[in-house]
Every structure is written in C-alpha cells, then in structure tokens.
C-alpha cells in the first residue's frame, strides 16, 4: 500500500470519527449524570438540518455550527425536562425524539424544494485545513479538544464531581444540597449541544448537504461507543476512531481491484461492526456504569 493510501485512510477515519465521537461524548456527560438518551440519532438529524439552514441563512459556517448546537440544546432540553421534572421515561422519550426527527426533517426538506435533499453551498461549508497530505476538517482537532475538555470537566472539576455524584447516588447528592434534576437537565442540554454540533458537521462540513437519511445509524453507533468507553471521553475518542478507521478501511479496501475475488464486498462491509464487537469482547473487565443510570430521581 502506498503512503498516500495510508494518509487517505487516516483522514477518512478522522472525519468519520468526528460525528460519532461528539455525539458519544455528549451522551457520556448525560449518562454520567444518570440519563440515558437513545434519541441521539434524532438529535443528529435535527442538528444536520439546523446547521445547513443556519449556515445558508447567515452565509457563515460558524453560525451554521452554532445553529446546530442551539437546536440540539433545545431537543436536549425537551428530553431533559421530560426525564427530570416531568418524571418521564427516558427510553420512551428517546425513541420519540428519533421518530419525530425522522418525520420532521423529511417534512422540512420536502417543503424546501426537492423533498429529501438540501445542499449546502461550498462557500458556507466549514473550510478545511490543507495539510499537504490531505485536507483536515477543523472539527477534528475540535473533537479531540472536546474529548480532553470533557474528560477534564468530568474528572477534574467541581462541576464534574457534581455531575457524576448525581449519576452515582442522587440521594447522596441531594442531601449534599445539589439540585439533582437541575444538574441532569444541564447535562441533557450539553449532550444536545454536542450531538447538534455533530449533526451540523455532517451537513455543512463532511457532506455539504442534508438528506433525510444523512445520519445513517451513526447515533446508534455512538450509543455503542459510549458503552465501549465506559463513560471515559478519551476512550470514546479512541472508540470513535477505531470504528471510523475500520468503516473507512472497509469502504476503501472494497475498491481495490481483485479484492472481490477473495471476499465478497458484503463481508468487507461488516468489518467495522465485527471489529468493534471483537474489541469490546476482548476488553478486560466489565465497564461500570453509574448506579442510578436511567433511573428517575424522586426524593423519598
């Protein structure tokens, strides 16, 4: 394999890593605080649409990313409110968000010209960083920074202590004077922001377009990566990269002449999923999750 191929696969992996990792890190914050949001896929989709619309309306990629984050925050707020003060079911509301997004985004696209598709002009896409060996999206270093930052936040700040305390033992946190539901709501909004950013990245950076199926299951892969990481953002980064790497590698290798004589493309395409499973199965020890994950907190 030539060096350019290695660079190429590396860049594909890094770019594929971004949305999965950002969403997974958001979910990590949320799960650390005890909320389980299965609606990541939906937030990604909302974020993708909002990002594209924001970028086009303002003519600025940055505004697009911010719009995606804002809409993500809004969905996070809805999810968080249902799951905390309204004492609702986290699972059900997550599923609801997914369905709502699927319908709403397609509906929006259908009234915006060609149903099901909306492209983002090159000028308002996120400009890439030319590195000689390839172009890198600025979201790649940002994702790495977010991973480190969230790790720092969760493990090395007072706020992180509170977030994790609320997830591990909400009753103890409550006794200590922490407003459990408020912290959880905040975590849900933060998760929404990151998932919304991930969605906006899809539309105004990676693909330059929104389609109604743009997320292609990445929200669920992110959920799996969270489980893989055991709520460590740095491991989520690694997990996102591993998945992105094998996903990219599979697509890449499938284009090689002669490969199809050895192995059908369908089996090559299974690679990222099989490898992720193998890595998880091979990890030593079981991951540990907050004791109160998924359990609504009610003061006795």
């Amino acid at each position: 394999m030539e060096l350019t191929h290695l660079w190429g696969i590396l860049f594909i992996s890094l770019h594929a890593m971004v949305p999965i990792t950002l969403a997974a890190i958001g979910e990590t914050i949320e799960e650390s605080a005890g909320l389980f949001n299965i609606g990541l896929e939906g937030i990604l989709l909302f974020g993708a649409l909002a990002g594209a619309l924001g970028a086009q309306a303002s003519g600025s990629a940055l505004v697009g990313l911010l719009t995606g984050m804002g809409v993500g925050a809004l969905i996070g707020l809805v999810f968080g409110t249902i799951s905390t003060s309204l004492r609702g079911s986290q699972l059900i509301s997550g599923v609801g968000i997914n369905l709502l997004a699927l319908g709403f985004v397609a509906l929006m696209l259908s009234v915006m010209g060609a149903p099901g598709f909306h492209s983002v002009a090159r000028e308002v896409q996120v400009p890439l960083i030319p590195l000689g060996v390839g172009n890198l999206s600025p979201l790649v270093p940002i994702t790495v920074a977010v991973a480190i930052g969230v790790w720092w936040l969760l493990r090395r700040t007072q706020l992180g202590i509170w977030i994790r305390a609320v997830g591990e033992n909400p009753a103890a946190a409550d006794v200590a004077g922490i407003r459990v539901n408020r912290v959880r709501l905040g975590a849900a909004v933060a998760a929404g922001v990151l998932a919304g950013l991930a969605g906006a990245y899809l539309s105004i950076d990676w693909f330059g377009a929104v389609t109604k199926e743009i997320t292609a299951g990445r929200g669920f892969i992110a959920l799996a990566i969270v489980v893989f990481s055991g709520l460590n953002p740095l491991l989520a980064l690694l997990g996102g990269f591993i998945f992105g790497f094998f996903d990219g590698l599979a697509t890449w290798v499938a284009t090689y002449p002669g490969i199809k004589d050895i192995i059908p493309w369908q089996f090559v395409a299974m690679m990222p999923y099989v490898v992720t499973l193998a890595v998880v199965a091979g990890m030593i020890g079981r991951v540990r999750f907050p004791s109160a994950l998924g359990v609504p907190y009610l003061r006795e």
Partner: protein
Amino acid sequence: MSSPSSWIRNLTPITESLLAGVVGLVIGAFIMLAFGYNPLAAYRSLFVGSVGSVYSWAELFANATPLILTALTFAIAMRGGLFNIGAEGQLYMGALAAVSVSLLHLPAPFNWIVAILAAMVAGMIWSLPVALLKLGRGVHEVISTIMFNWIAHFFAFYLIANVLTDPQRGERTIAVSESARLTRVFPDATLSSGLFISLVTVGVIFFLLWRTSTGFEIRSVGYNPHASHYAGISIRKQVLRVFLIGGAIAGLAGAIVVMGRPPYYAVLSGLPQLVNLGFDGIGVAMIGRNHPIGIVFAAIFFGGLMTGGRIMQFDPGVPFELVRVIQGVIILALAIPELRRLFFLARERLAGRK
C-alpha cells in the same frame, strides 16, 4: 377486586395512552397548520383511511401483524431486564430462512410449518451470540445488538445477491413456494392469516410470562436479579432464555412478512419490506408498556397511523413524513406519566376561571 372503581382504575393505562394520542394529534395539527395543510381534512382521511372500511381495517391489521411480534421481542427482554434492540437483524435472518426453505421442495402440508420453524431457529441463532457475548465476556447487549443488526444487514445483502437470488428476477430472492404461503383473509387486502399467528404468539407470551414458572423467573430476574439469585433462580439461564425466545419471535416476524404479505413472498433487495420493522417494534412495545395485550393495541394504533397515513397523501395531500412526526409527538407525550395530572390541573384551572 372487581369493584367498579377498580375496573375503571385498571383502564388508566389505556386512557393514558389515548390521552397521549390526542395530545400527539393536537400538536400534529398545529404542525400541519404551520406547513399549510388542513388538519381537519387530514385527520378525516387518516381516520377514514385507517378504520373507515373493512378493507382499511384489514390493512391496519396487516401493518400491525409484524409489529406485534417485533414489539414482543423487545418487551420480553425488557421484562427480563435486558435491552434487546436486535429484533431488526433477527427479523432479516428469519425472513431469509423462511425463503430458503422453498429450496427444499417439501410436500405441501409441512412446508409452511418448516418455513416458520426455520425462521424461528434462524432468529434464535442470530440472537445466540448476543447472549453468549453477554454471559461470557460481559458485552452489553446494546453494543452487540446494534452491531449484529448491521452484520445481518450486509449478510442479507450477500444472500439476496448471491445465494437466494431468483434467476429470472435479480431484484429479489426466490419466492416462498405456493404451499408455504399464508392464506389471504380478503382477496384484495394484504392481510393474511399471519395475524392469527401473531395473536396466538401474544397469547403464548402472555401465558408464559404470567402463568408459568419460566415467566415468573424471567420477570423476577428483570425486576431484581439479586433477589432472584437469592431465590435460586439462575440469571444466566434467563439471559439465554430471553434472547432465544426474543430471537425466535423476531424470526417469526420475518417469516410472516415474506410468507404472508402479498404480493411478494420474497425478500426484495435492499430489504424494503423489512427495514425498520424491528425498530418500530420498540416504539410499539413502549406504547404498549411492554405488556402483550398493550402491545396488540399499540400495534393497532401504529398500524392505523401507517394505513391512514397512506390515504392522507391522497386528498389533503399531506406528506407521509407528517405521520412520523405525529408518531414521534405521541410517543414523547406517552413518556410523561405526569401528563394525566397536568391535564387534570389545566382543566381544573380552566374550570376555576369560569
């Protein structure tokens, strides 16, 4: 136990679900107005299109048939404390297994039974590694089921394109042999006797969960694994059981779609008649509160939205996506147990103002 007041209290989950349904429809109406559609006309179509005629009822049940089964797969796992979202992949495997039985050219009376059994076994085989990975390596079922769904997706593509391909019709697999097809209930509707298989399965699962020691064990482990271990119940055995039963039901769902959903009786490339049935089942199970009877009603409700949604596209010209929006809002509303109380308070306040 059977005083009238307790009778009406037992209806509470139903009224709660209906209330969420109404809230979903109302919010959906506002969204329609915002997009310039007439909600009254749309809902009339939705209503008439789903329950307005025998034909629409038949279509409604045809849509509900596989959803009942995939919802059961999810629900039985939830009852056992597991989050099995693997119905999607198990369903593909079941459908392909049912199709592949026609290669055997079995005599007519056994054909459909063998096809169904093959599908159930295929579903079980596909969920077995999920259980084994959990038991042996502690791999969380959320990861493994998501991954196995995708692996099933590509494996199905491989089988459709290379192994089970119809030599005359490359866009689909070979068809299920005539004798293995489930009888159509009405000549022109797509409803088949698969509905009865679904309903029988509901009965079996209901009986299993609440009237057998197996169900006792599953529920006990689902609620409290520590107490179950203490009571001498093997947790590992329940994990295996729950995944195998779930896999069998999901496989059955796949079989019923290919054996009882005219006019295809084959798996189309891209799996367009199977995709999302597993995931929709999760929503159905949740609306049905993971209870077999609740699931039947929830599936009817979902099936009704799907059936009526087809008609909504005609006259009022409301796009199908809106049906999904309404579904999403309804499920969000269902997530809120306080809804009933909020509703009551709002009414109280309104009444007070008069």
